């Protein structure tokens, strides 16, 4: 199994991009918190493994207007954005536990495959609400696009970084977990942009994190916005929570986020 794997250790971003190529047959190992157990349990036998720990894809750049988060940045480091983007920092603190957050990467979390037994991708909603742009490489070269579009079609892509404008206010509300290590059951992230626009997104849906356009349109009335959010999404129905339960909780989380945003005025 692992002894037949070709393991690649790029020491720069350029080298990582070149070794990734079109992504065919490449298993990316960054923090390893998701992919390593897959290998341990024999569910995955990579032909080529691209180890990103030394590739220099980590780091947060903040020029005061725009913030760029490298895909290899440990989730724990998002805590340093607690003043600039409290909603994102709160979302990050909601991921697993401190040891996992110190090892898991932002890119790995955003790109994690979603299944009924593991509804991963805790950070997707927060970055989608921020209107983040995803920069990736793969077949056809480099591409920058809205994160939601990237998540729709991320096969064969290597995420390099996500970039967003610093918001005027941000908020996060989540269902509590029965166990520290569960994935996000259901969460809502909200942002008020510098231009005053309200953006909302949810995590814990049937696929990946998504914007809530109907709820955004009704944002001035949190009660109505909460109900409208149900028109925007297909909810997951899995071992963590039934679809019915999520349908009762989503309006509540939307209301809480909008209330937080109002209080942040």
């Amino acid at each position, binding site marked *: 199994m*692992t*002894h037949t*794997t070709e*393991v690649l*250790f790029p020491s720069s971003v350029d080298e990582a991009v070149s070794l990734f190529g079109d992504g065919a047959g490449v298993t990316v*190992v960054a*923090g*390893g*918190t998701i992919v*390593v*157990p897959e*290998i*341990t*349990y024999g569910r995955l036998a*990579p032909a080529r*493994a691209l*180890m990103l*720990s030394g590739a220099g894809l980590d780091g947060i750049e903040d020029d005061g207007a725009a913030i760029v988060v490298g895909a290899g940045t440990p989730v724990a480091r998002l805590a340093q954005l607690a003043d600039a983007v409290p909603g994102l920092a709160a979302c990050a603190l909601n991921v*697993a*536990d*401190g*040891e*996992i957050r*110190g*090892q898991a990467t932002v890119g790995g979390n955003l790109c994690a495959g979603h299944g009924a037994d593991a509804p991963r991708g805790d950070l997707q909603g927060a970055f989608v609400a921020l209107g983040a742009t995803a920069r990736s490489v793969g077949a056809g070269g480099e591409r920058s696009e809205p994160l939601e579009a990237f998540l729709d079609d991320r096969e064969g892509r290597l995420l390099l970084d996500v970039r967003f404008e610093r918001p005027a206010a941000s908020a996060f509300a989540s269902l509590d977990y029965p166990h*520290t*290590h569960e994935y996000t059951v259901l969460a809502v992230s909200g942002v008020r942009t510098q231009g005053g626009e309200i953006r909302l997104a949810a995590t814990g849906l049937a696929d990946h994190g998504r914007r809530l356009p109907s709820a955004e349109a009704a944002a001035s009335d949190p009660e109505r916005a909460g109900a409208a959010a149900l028109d925007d999404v297909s909810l997951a129905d899995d071992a963590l929570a039934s679809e019915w339960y999520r349908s009762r909780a989503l309006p509540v989380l939307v209301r809480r986020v909008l209330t937080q945003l109002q209080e942040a005025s």
Partner: protein
Amino acid sequence: MNLTVNGVAHEVDSAPLSTLLHVLREELGITSPKAGCEQGGCGACTVLVDGEPRRSCLTAVGAIDGAEVTTVEGLGTPEALSPVQQAFTHHYAAQCGFCTSGMLVAAEAYVRGGGTDEPEAIQEALAGHVCRCTGYVKIIDAVAAFARGEEFDLSTTAASPGMTNLGGAQ
């Protein structure tokens, strides 16, 4: 690949995608990290990698070439338990003991990082560690005492030989 484990340099023969847990237990014979769930959910395999608590079952050894690893074997010895081991012993913070190795190194990292005896902060620091004996109260008491720098006379603690000995055979 090379690792320094508890101050001793080792050349590692296992494949780069082998877990650090596998290398420690199966190649180097260092057995304090326990193979519990082997998917990051229980914390029994936690060790210190360059001083940071990490799940050794989630860590591909190729990703930490050259790192310094500390396990319970590197904290103290059966004859001279380290302060965190003494605190766990004094407070009877181990029942079956399976989670204890992970708890000890996580507590060590917490206090080295300036952690206090505040129960909520200890709970947060140990959030990734499951004790299936559910002995959490004693564990948190022990970490709080360790954080306060308390010292213990274990000759009065160990009234039940074999029951409180975290360091190995008496």
